[in-house]
């Protein structure tokens, strides 16, 4: 098991589906299309894709502990 911890904010999710397409083994959607985390402790091999998923989320609704934050990742 890796050192990464993934969480996602259902309330701010706008169903872009970007994370689900990028990492279907980590992210899914509920009946309403809102984000659901399937695997909150994904392997380290997914680091780059997790970084891209966090970066790409239109409402910054994805957090990844154990991954250095980049400029623009968390704001606004």
């Amino acid at each position, binding site marked *: 098991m890796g050192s990464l911890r993934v969480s996602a904010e259902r309330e701010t999710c*706008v*169903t*872009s*589906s970007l994370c*689900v*397409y990028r990492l279907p083994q980590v992210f899914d*959607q509920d*009946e*309403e*299309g809102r984000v659901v985390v399937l695997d909150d402790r994904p392997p380290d091999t997914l680091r780059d894709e997790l970084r*891209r998923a966090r*970066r*790409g989320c*239109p*409402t*910054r609704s994805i957090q990844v502990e154990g991954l250095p934050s980049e*400029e*623009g990742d968390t*704001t*606004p």
Partner: protein
Amino acid sequence: MSGDRCPVGYPLAWAPAPDIPEGWTTLREQPLLEITLPSGEPALLVTRYKDVRRLFADERLSRNTFGRASRVSASNDLFGDPRIDNDPPRYLTERAVVMRAFSARRIEALRVVVKEIVGQLLDEMAAGPQPVDLMEAFAYPLPILVICHMLGVPPQDRAKFRRLIDGFLSVSRLPEDEVEECRRQYWDYLTELIDAKRERPGDDLISELIEISREDPTKLTDYQLQHWVKTLLIAGYVTTASQLGTGMAVLLHRPEAAAELKADLSLVPSAVEELLRYQIMGTSLGTLRYAVEDIELLDGTTVIPKGSTVLLSQESNMDADEFENPLDLDIRRTENHHLTFGAGIHFCAGAALARMELQEATEGLLCRLPGLRLAVPGEELKRPEGGFLAGYTEIPVSW
């Protein structure tokens, strides 16, 4: 902003070929550009990727532009409607109702339908004469058929539907009274269509929305329902058609990139993404916002004054601070957080649908017509005069 600088006409000038004008990469030298909209009214264009990305998610830029922001064109407010609240919290309630139909699972269930439509259109194209206009033969029909299938528009209404939308979206091409007439007829047509669905519900999005609005009218009133259907039909059609056609023109203008893609179809998703970033069909007119407060940009000195009309630059997809070699079309690009679908709470509702259609269309064209090529030099492709989008009027192809 210095007041003595002459405002730039918007949309900006294009390069003659299916290329990005060099000038777009230097736009960001000024973080905020005074521009003149097609209506002749003033606006401010935010040019830097980082500012644009942040401001897409900034609630101080209101989407309720009707009656207070500058107009895109003198005769057409486009999506402006004083009876619709496009800001949170109301907007989020309505959007949530609609977005359940656009989840990845629902979009993937549609992929088989899209594949079938792509196959039929390509069969017809292959059996017909050459050269043929890719827009008329393929790029326009595909998204109309898909969105009409999704919403439940009957096949016999699709030609009428297209004529009205084409007129409605014509920003400066048609005389004002004709645009207005198209807008009125389109709205009346939707009233009839929704009434028919109330009588006889089907397995489609309009029927689903009617059901939700019946269960809980506070989530979606009748008027809001009709407004969303109107917007989805327009948004699902013209943007996708334009991106599909111009994206293929950009690709076919670069035969080495087209050959690389044909040889390895696993690159189709990243190629579609890169063509979206590289999109030369669009302008930033659809990002129109109104500043309800003063907003400082990231340089710490430039301020968008309260009361300004603001466009968030799609040209920021060419910002070298964000994209390596931004003018190069790189179908293998992996760091590609382009802003073609926007960001924040107004992120394009149909983005996943559009991507899926573009992927199926691209793969279908390359496989079914492996010799596909532009029948005229790319430099000679014509752009429309006026109109909401800036694609090509005609894209003659042979194979």
